[in-house]
């Protein structure tokens, strides 16, 4: 869990888990993070998969879609926070409905990004959460 357990001695890379039911969006986020301090540790297409992956890969940061099959984003957020309270969650959703955004924040999300987004917007939003 702690950064000093890493053998390279320096700060460990920020571990990112991407959760979105759209393959295109997942790839898009992944591509935008090729360079820099962020290491993509997994991608999931629904909430259950995301929880499973989070247990195994211990991410620091999660990008989270809200409307997904099986387990939706809101529930997934609260479960992830239960799993690791320090986890940072960036909601990325096309929902224009503010009530859902408020609900996500209430569950523990840290940021909100509207789809569609540019790489710049995504990087800014992530930077705001981890630095």
């Amino acid at each position, binding site marked *: 869990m702690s950064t000093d357990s890493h053998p390279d001695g320096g700060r460990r890379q920020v571990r990112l888990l991407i959760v979105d039911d759209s393959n295109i969006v997942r790839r898009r986020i992944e591509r935008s993070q090729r360079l820099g301090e962020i290491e993509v540790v997994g991608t999931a297409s629904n909430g259950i998969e995301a929880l499973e992956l989070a247990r195994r890969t211990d991410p620091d940061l999660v990008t989270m879609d809200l409307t997904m099959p099986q387990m939706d984003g809101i529930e997934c957020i609260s479960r992830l926070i239960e799993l690791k309270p320090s986890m940072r969650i960036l909601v990325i959703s096309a929902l224009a409905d*503010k009530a859902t955004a408020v609900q996500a924040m209430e569950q523990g999300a*840290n940021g909100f990004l509207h789809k569609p987004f540019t790489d710049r917007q995504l990087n800014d939003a992530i930077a*705001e959460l981890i630095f």
Partner: protein
Amino acid sequence: MQLSGTDRNRRFLAAGAAVAVVTVMALVLIVGFRLATRIRASVAALQTTSVLQTYPAVISQQLAALRGQLDTLEYTGRVHGELAATIANFNKDFATIERRHDLDPAAIQRAQTLWQSYQPVLAPVLAFSGEPYDDTDTGSSLSPGGRVYYDQVRRAAIFAAENATVLHQQLASLSGSLQKRTSAAAARLRTLLFVGVLTVLALAMAALYLQLARGRHERAARDAQEQTRDILKTVREGFFLLDADYRIGSVWSEALTRLFGRSDFAGLDFEELLRDKVSPETLATAVKYIKLLWGERARENLMKSINPLGQLEVSMDNGRGGKETRYLQFDFHRVMGPKGVKHVLCAVGDITSNVLLARELQEAQENAHSQLDMMVGMLHADPLQVSTFLDSASAGLKHVNTILKEPARTDAEFRKKLAGLSRELHSIKGEASALNLMSIAQRVHHLEDMVGELKGKSELTGNDFLPVVLKLDELLAHLRGVREMTARLVTLKDGSPEPGATLSVPQLRIVSAEQPAAASSTERPTRAAGDLGTMLQQLAAKLAQDHGKRITLTLSGLGEVPEAYLSTVKDCVIQMLRNAAVHGIEPSDARRATAKPEAGEVRVDFHRSEKGYELVFQDDGAGLSPETLKQAAVRKNILTGEEAAALDNRAALALIFRPGFSTRDEVSMDAGRGVGMDVVARAVYALGGKIGVSTNPGRFTRFKIALPEASQAPAVA
């Protein structure tokens, strides 16, 4: 912060000055009191020494007097008593002086010694008692005791006379030193009073200065407060602070009163502010959002982006007993204190006009789009057809206006109006969609919806028609727009804009007829009929496409239609064609199943007859089923079950000419409003004609319309 700090300092200074004034005054009083007491004692002592100074002389005089009396053998008792009293007084007063510590003890000692030296000569004198004289008959003479007494008096008198001056001087020097001391004390008292008064004055001035400064500062604070009040009174946004319990603070801007129609904001719960003004769901979201603002994750940008109150639709009392919809914009800013979020500043603005403007813009944009669509549609249509349509549509709408103007009081009269409106609108819509003028067709469709809603109302009043009148105006304006555009298009197509070829329809006709000015009236029917044919073919193609069917339309004899009947014939054929496309012709697969050709066939034949003209309209569709018609009539409450059962097939078929009858339940652009064949029948009757229908279920439906000679036909409005 800075202000209140200096303010506190000033307060401390003023209080310090006041305390100093009191202390100094107390000190001056205490010291002054002591000095005064000492001076008073000194003055008393001074009096005593002054008296003491006189004693040596008095003693000397008294002794001298006593000696004189002894010399003359006078009575000595009185003077002797006085002398004794004087000596006793001296002793008493001297004892008082001796007790004083502020006198030079050496001087006192010296006076004491001097006085002691008096004692050996005075004591025997005082000790004498008895009669100094012996009284005989020969006279008086000193007795032996008297002689001793006389000697003692004489000695004492000589001693006293010799020493009186020295003792007097000694006592006078005591008095002098005492006087000096007293005046020194008095000088000290004066100085003390002077310094005390000066100090008090200085301190009082300092206190006054501080007080003035405080007054100035308070005035400045009051000014600042007043300015804040003025800002809050004038600013157009509603401003208030929310505390950690989500309650409104005691200061808010006046605009809030106007925005919310209340003024009891202090301490009001934020939830309470919005209750009854927004939906419960919105309220719940708003409350959650406000709670989030206090959290550590609530960064300003993030919170701004998810603000659910950025454009809040609220329903407010409009002051006239009704409700009106307004749009409010809430902005939240966190006010940070040393221990996290202290307050949340909330700014509320009324953005109703912005929202409405944005909507208008959007509508205008949509209008522009629809105009473009219309333009494209018109490029495909024949200008002559369009102008003919515009003529008849304008006439139709005029008729609608006439219907609306007809006075009506009873519900039945209003309903009659509605029925008339429906028919006119329906036929205009039919023509518009036949010409592919969808912008017009949609507007009329919308009007029909409004009329339909009115029909569904339980009770009708004149006011219910107002929106329809407004919408009609809009439609007329639109028609004018279309007319202008047609004129421009014609000019474009013609390539040679003529000064007259602008707006009026007759001129349009001339231009597009390619025979300017020479177009004769006999040629017109032919031309118009040709246009009618093209138009009907286009309509058939469009209807087939819209309803997923295939239709072959065969027209004959339309060239024969006299001009007076042209409009009616056109309207009737359009309506029947629509009915055929919607109800009559079956979908291709159904037709295949019954071994019919895939394309439905519709024939329209116009020809002369014995008494005038005849129009035959026939489709090879499913035909009409008397039973279905009856059921529909019962469902529409046009007939009761018994009445329906009593009808023969012929009468059942005639049901389709009744107003409000339609077998379609859902409404589409082309059919289902229950306006259709009754419009056709009315138009025919209006020309003095007749209409009949015959059918063979599964095979065909045929309408026959008989019209009288054109010259006998009544004028069409």
